[in-house]
């Protein structure tokens, strides 16, 4: 099986700000991403649960796979916002089969 190395970027972000992150992905030329709902968790500012009536603190996870070059663009654009947006950003190496897609 022939596989190619790509970067997986996971971004945990408050739901109201997900649109802004999606725009940054678009600007970096990332062709596809998936948004996952979350149930709750705990972070530096306390715990949060998704059964809140306001979406202000509901968090979603945005996952995208991309080339090293695009991943750098995304990380550069997101880095200044990590604190302001309360983002959590993970990068990982993944193997994909159809490299031309990412």
């Amino acid at each position, binding site marked *: 099986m022939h596989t190619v190395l790509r970067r997986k970027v996971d971004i945990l972000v408050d739901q109201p700000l997900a649109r802004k992150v999606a725009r940054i992905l678009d600007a970096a030329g990332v062709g596809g991403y998936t948004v996952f709902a979350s149930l709750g968790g705990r972070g530096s500012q306390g715990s949060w649960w998704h059964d*809140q009536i306001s979406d202000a603190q509901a968090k979603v996870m945005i996952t995208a796979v991309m080339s090293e070059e695009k991943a750098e663009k995304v990380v550069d654009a997101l880095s*200044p916002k990590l604190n302001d947006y309360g983002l959590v950003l993970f990068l990982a190496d993944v193997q994909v089969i159809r490299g031309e897609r990412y």
Partner: protein
Amino acid sequence: MTDLMALSAQVLLAPAILFFLLGLGAAFLKSDLSIPEPIAKAMAIYLMVAIGFKGGHEVAVGGVSADMLIAAGLGMALSFAFPFLAFALIRALAKLDGVNAGAIAAHYGSISVVTFVTALEVFRIAGTPVPGYMVAVMALMETPAILSGLWLARRALPASAKADKGGDHEVLREVLFNGSVMLLVGAFVIAMISGQKGYDVMAPLIDLPFKAVLCFFLLDMGLVAARQLMGAKLLTWRLIACALILPPLGALLGGGLAALAGLPVGAVAALAALAASASYIAVPAAIRLTLPQANPGLYLTCSLAISFPFNVTIGLPLYLTYARMLTGAS
């Protein structure tokens, strides 16, 4: 004083408030009770359509009055101006930075639909019905505070963060066309257009079941408010003091101005309750998007976990008594 005690007892024994206390208690006891989020949201939509429609119907029957226009003007002015006062208090007493103080101030200038709906019910039980046009006044009070709060907060932002405004058209869209304003105003206008026939269609769903749905919804609000409070890490006693001072301060101003303008007792009490209430659904979502630098753990905890429970349990009887004193009504 005995009147106030009797009124407070009456309010605390209303089923809606008892359900709210049940929710608070269940969460504090770490019960696994929870209302699924889509159902809570559906109930919120139902409550907004129902009060929007009922308010619109009353205005359609009674006609547009001078009182309505005066209340609308007062409400909008209060919503716009109150964040400045709140900002000064939060800066001085809670010693918060300008960005967070501006964000919290926006919440206190704006209104809480659930507090208002609970006030309608509580005041009605106590024998002081609120005029239908106050629903429209409430919808108008939702957004001006977001603009003044944002303005206050953004003056405190570092220059590097100012570039990331996300476009002012986005702010305006979020502020003017947010879902709750759309629903309230939309249902109000539909009721005015469709007249008695429209009301006959809607009445079986929005009239009698309304009070029971409010009970369910307040049960959920009790759970949500208590869990927000228990999850909060950044609360200080100074901030808690602000969240307890701002509601009566708003009521003092709102009720006082409404009485000076000669509005009837129901409208005075309602404007006091509106000025006292702080948003925790519409404004937090708008502020999170337009002012990401502000900490939602601060503004949501203040409005949802402290001011809201204070208003529905202790505040409402106070505001009604105050309105009755001002207008000389009993």
